[in-house]
């Protein structure tokens, strides 16, 4: 399986770091690779780090929303971490609010959030 965006295993979770100048096909490839990886490992949580990403446009917004939705169908929670202030402002001005996407300030917070959400799920 050839992937442009590497997927790392981080404890029970999967970690994806999207590079600065990702092009569209690589972003779409991520959906294939990530869903395959979740299914293979039975992962319950996914962290997508976008801290180096300078642009989230409608295309990338849709990739993030779709990826989170696909993971959900495979019973995994997704947290998008590290969105830059300028990116957040631009998204709001574009009228995009990334429906269904859970966000956290940084990787550490993202992991805390995943643990919290998954813990809640296990304990009912």
């Amino acid at each position, binding site marked *: 399986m050839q992937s442009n965006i590497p997927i790392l295993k981080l404890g029970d979770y999967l970690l994806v770091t999207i590079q600065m100048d990702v092009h569209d096909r690589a972003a779409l490839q991520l959906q294939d690779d990530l869903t395959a990886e979740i299914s293979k490992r039975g992962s319950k949580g996914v962290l997508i780090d976008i801290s180096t990403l300078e642009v989230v*446009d409608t295309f990338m917004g849709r990739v993030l929303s779709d990826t989170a939705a696909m993971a959900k169908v495979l019973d995994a929670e997704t947290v998008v971490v590290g969105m830059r202030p300028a990116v957040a402002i631009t998204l709001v001005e574009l009228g995009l609010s990334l429906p269904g996407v859970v966000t956290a300030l940084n990787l550490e917070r993202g992991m805390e959030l995943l643990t919290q959400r998954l813990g809640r799920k296990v304990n009912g």
Partner: protein
Amino acid sequence: MGNDGSFRESISLHSDRDVSRARVLVAQWASQQGFSVVERTRAMTAVSEISRNCVIHGGGGTMYVSTLYNNGSPGFRIQIVDQGPGIENLELSMGRGYSTRGGLGLGLDGARKLCRAFRVESNAGAGTTVTLDYWR
């Protein structure tokens, strides 16, 4: 460098890698002219939308970036030109949520919100030119 001290660069748009290059070129212009990070991000995002439209719907084209002055404020003009089928219903495609293929259908209208001045010239069968102006 033109006679009036203006400067112009262009980049051809034919693939998704070109869309990435277009974003990088605009980022360089914005940084060189001392734009804020937020303004630079706006410009990069708008260019990302329009140049992708150009590649997917316009059959590819060219992006031009040139210097611009608005009431003494420095800035730049981005023009994205294609010879594609043109936009049949401009008003409809500027509306929120309209999309012909993929995306969230906010591309053209979204880009308009992310620049100081915006212009689309398009005729069915005669290509499309989108102009985005930025100044400080």
